[in-house]
């Protein structure tokens, strides 16, 4: 066991205890519900499973969810990078407030966020009226879903990128400038290149989170079957119809997608970190 773990002797005792507790916790909180889901799904047989997930209404909801989540992630990647940049690089009054506000979407119950967004973007809402003047319908469309998703997952990007930006001292840009780099070139080849892994991680997490977002979205989405119905809502509808098997089948797809994404991100991150940190 000790040979297998190869941990360096630590001054703090209690590796065995802390390790066991972590494993136990992971089992209870994560693995147990997961296996419950797997049991539900495995009981239904391949054909039924396939029918549920290829049902046109399901397909439509997958499409809405994935496309909106992708759109939200792109917005978040850009806005999140910008926010993190402003917070790390500039000192201005209200910076601490801004820093605290970034976490607000995490702290706020998503249903509250959803209600607020729905009110804001309603056709006669503060923001919605301007959008409708421009002929853009936000509420009850995928645009609304996208906005809700990007609101609830923005902190992932900011918090992933921020520490990396803090590490990038201004002398790197200065070095690039003395080597003849234009501002654009030094942003692309020095800053963006080094932030990219963290940005991908943050965006990936935001995307994963958006796939499963429920409370934030349903109020603004309108929830029209085949048009603005997200997968989580469909799962909920099936549950209310006591169709546990269908609900599990749908949930398993979201789960699978999330797991694949998470492991993918982890792997990518590990490879780059290993290289750059000389391990």
């Amino acid at each position: 066991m000790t040979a297998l773990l190869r941990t360096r002797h630590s001054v703090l005792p209690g590796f065995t205890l802390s390790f066991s507790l972590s494993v136990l916790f992971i089992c209870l909180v994560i693995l147990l519900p997961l296996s419950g889901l797997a049991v539900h799904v495995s009981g239904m047989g391949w054909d039924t499973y396939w029918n549920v997930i290829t049902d046109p209404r399901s397909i439509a909801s997958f499409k809405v969810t994935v496309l909106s989540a992708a759109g939200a992630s792109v917005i978040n990647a850009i806005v999140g990078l910008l926010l993190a940049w402003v917070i790390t690089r500039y000192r201005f009054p209200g910076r601490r407030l801004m820093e605290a506000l970034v976490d607000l979407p995490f702290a706020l119950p998503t249903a509250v966020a959803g209600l607020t967004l729905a009110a804001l973007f309603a056709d006669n809402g503060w923001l919605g009226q301007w959008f409708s003047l421009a002929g853009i319908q936000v509420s009850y469309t995928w645009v609304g879903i996208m906005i809700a998703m990007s609101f609830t997952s923005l902190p992932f990007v900011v918090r992933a990128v921020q520490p990396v930006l803090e590490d990038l001292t201004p002398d790197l840009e200065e070095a690039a400038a003395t080597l003849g780099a234009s501002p654009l070139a030094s942003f692309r080849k020095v800053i963006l290149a080094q932030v990219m892994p963290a940005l991908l991680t943050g965006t990936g997490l935001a995307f994963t989170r958006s796939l499963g977002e429920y409370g934030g979205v349903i109020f603004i989405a309108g929830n029209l079957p085949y048009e603005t119905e997200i997968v989580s809502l469909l799962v909920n509808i099936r549950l209310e119809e006591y169709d546990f098997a269908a609900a599990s089948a749908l949930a398993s797809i979201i789960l699978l997608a999330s797991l694949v994404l998470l492991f993918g991100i982890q792997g990518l991150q590990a490879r780059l970190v290993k290289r750059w940190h000389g391990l």
Partner: protein
Amino acid sequence: MSIQVENIRKSFGAFTALHDISLDVPTNQLVGLLGPSGSGKTTLLRIIAGLERADGGRVLFNNEDVTHLDARRRRVGFVFQQYALFRHLTVADNIAFGLRLLPRAERPSRRDIRDRVRELLSLVQLDNLAGRYPAQLSGGQKQRVALARALALKPEVLLLDEPFGALDAKVRKDLRRWLRRLHEQISVTSIFVTHDQEEAMEVSDKVVVMSQGRVEQMGSPLQVYEQPASRFVFDFLGHINSLEGLYDGHNWRSGDAFLRLDTQGACPDGALTLYLRPHEAELAAAPTEAAHLPVRVAGRSVFGGTVTVELEPQGWGAEVLEVELDRVRWDALQPDRQPALYLLPRRLQTVTCDGDLGPQVAPA
């Protein structure tokens, strides 16, 4: 390429970093900007590089005004104290960074870039590390990569900001000798910033001593050491002992101690401070007619051929004195067997009551 700095001024808010600085660096010289932190040396270097804008004054390269050129158009090589290597690029890619950014018409072919990188790697003696990432290098290796990167575009001006500041003593010493040799191999005008007197003295053709945003003195290392232009320069270059006493035209006295000094009327009667460099004194078992400075050994440290001795003045007022003696002579003196010891200065720097430097004198 020669570098001229004319009347450069720079303030940060209420703090004036540089007061009207003018400097002339002839082609292919290696000049050290030496000063304590806050003396403005790094700011001056950054202004020469174009990384900082001066509030007034001009910077000229080969008599051409570059004051309003961006850093990227000045074509200077700049080496940062903390290396500023791009950690996501290999050593070779770091060095090739500037070459790859050249406009297409000037950019060398892929092959030429590879050859140039190889050439630079061998110049900095890191031939087999081309594929490593910066995190896999030691501090000294990183700084050499940074130097190779700065030289990649064949700049005619090379600026180094405390290039060895982050390295340990042994590596520092090796690297600065190596820099000196490198500078003789390539044709480039270099300015480097340091707060380490020894480094400036060893590496530079000329030393510029700066203090509080002003140039105190510019000259060869020997010149600034032997003929300091101001009290600050004398103070800053190496350790000094300060002896305070009264002068009556013939003798300098402090308690039981006296020195017979002939200043040929340069020093008025009254308070007179004498500066003594640690290596410009001897220790003897008996005083002479011209020098009577009783001392007691309070500590010693032996390193190489010299012995650094801490001396406590006996019966006269001065702080603990530090002198460096030849180890052979120290052993011959047998200091532990002597009932009393006397300090015999060979040369002293007088400091007049208004704080300026007077003549250098010897007891006689």
